């Protein structure tokens, strides 16, 4: 296998790892349901997408076109179900009264050392 081939494969896998890691951190750290959904779908769409790309290269290299087709099918199904599930979860969240998070207003600070008079 040529050297550049492996380089591309590892770059793709690294990109996948980046999106999975970023998505996982997002699920753990983002402030509300909707932002977490946004993070989660990045794992499915881009993380899995890059994994599928890297594995498809492997499959094409060994001349297994059917395997490539199956991998792409898996990704397509994951894309469709992740988009649908994301919409449904967000919808039922909205219906259950989950208000989207907004940045709290910047505290109107007083100049340092200033004391409010009673």
């Amino acid at each position: 296998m040529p050297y550049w081939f492996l380089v591309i494969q590892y770059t793709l896998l690294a990109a996948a790892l980046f999106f999975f890691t970023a998505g996982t951190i997002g699920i753990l750290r983002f402030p509300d349901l909707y932002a977490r959904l946004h993070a989660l779908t990045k794992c499915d769409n881009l993380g899995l997408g890059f994994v599928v790309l890297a594995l498809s290269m492997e499959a094409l290299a060994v001349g297994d076109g059917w395997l490539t087709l199956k991998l792409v099918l898996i990704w397509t199904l994951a894309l469709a179900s992740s988009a649908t599930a994301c919409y449904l979860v967000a919808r039922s969240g909205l219906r259950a009264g989950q208000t989207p998070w907004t940045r709290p207003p910047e505290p109107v600070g007083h100049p340092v050392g200033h004391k409010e008079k009673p």
Partner: protein
Amino acid sequence: MNGALLIDVLLAAGLVVLAGASLRARDLFTGVVTFMIFGLLMSLAWVRLAAPDLALAEAAIGSGITGALFLGAMRRLEESAPEVIAPAPERPPGANGRFALALGGIPLALYFAATALVPALLDGPSGLAEPVAAVLKESGAENPVTAIILNLRGYDTMLELVVLLLAWSGVCVLQGELGRTNIVPATGELAVLGAFVRFLRFPGVIVAGYLVWVGGAAPGGAFQAGAMLGGVGAVGLMAGGAIRPLYAGPGVRPVLVAGAGIFMIIGLLLSITAGAFLAYRGAQAKTLILIIEILSTLSIGLVLTLLFAACTFPPSPERPGEPVEGAP
């Protein structure tokens, strides 16, 4: 520590933690969702144990369909018995820790005790692989798991199909046949789910067909394919009445009994011609197995869809004047 061992240890630890979390969840919803995640990790564990057949079955049936049935049952409980799904009271501090310790510790202790007392367990004979390989050629399937399920232990599989039928009969006794159940019609709000179902139908059926076909030579088979069909059916039911003819048409009962029925018919015919129940060998075996698998797939898919519908949607009289069994 090499990478594979690290993954195995993480997987095993994750399984114990998730099992504990599912059993000890304070509300049912968390318990059910944790159970589904447990099923997914379990199927990864089966892959690591080089048992892809079990992994497929676990992911499709153990995690997917069972989880959907649980969630559907919860939805019904919310209306009929809200006290059941109310969150349990807070546990005393340390109770969960002791529980987790017992949950992980007892099997580990048993494992070490068993391997210390009976060292032969570690390098004993590897099960039935050799006897099965010896008769594989005659069995009509190249995949040893399929050979066992549909030939060597065919009656077990036939009885499993009968169990599914019995489960459906139980539902009919409790709340009337689904033909009289009103399924919530599709509304504009669920248009996205409807579009998803229309998108899923074609690849879903293709994948199910592929699983049946490939089951002869590689991991796959009627139960995995049936679970696939059941999954498509369940999503279709959630999207609305789009697949109504499938569950309320005149062909429902024949399809329900097709799997167990063809098993029995072939079995009985063979007991006359070949002298023993389900005694197919050689060239005819492959054809017979394929026929049984296709019909079983349809039966399993339909039973699972109907069970999901019965769990999720309350029964209501469709034809006025006809009493609905079990309705309050």
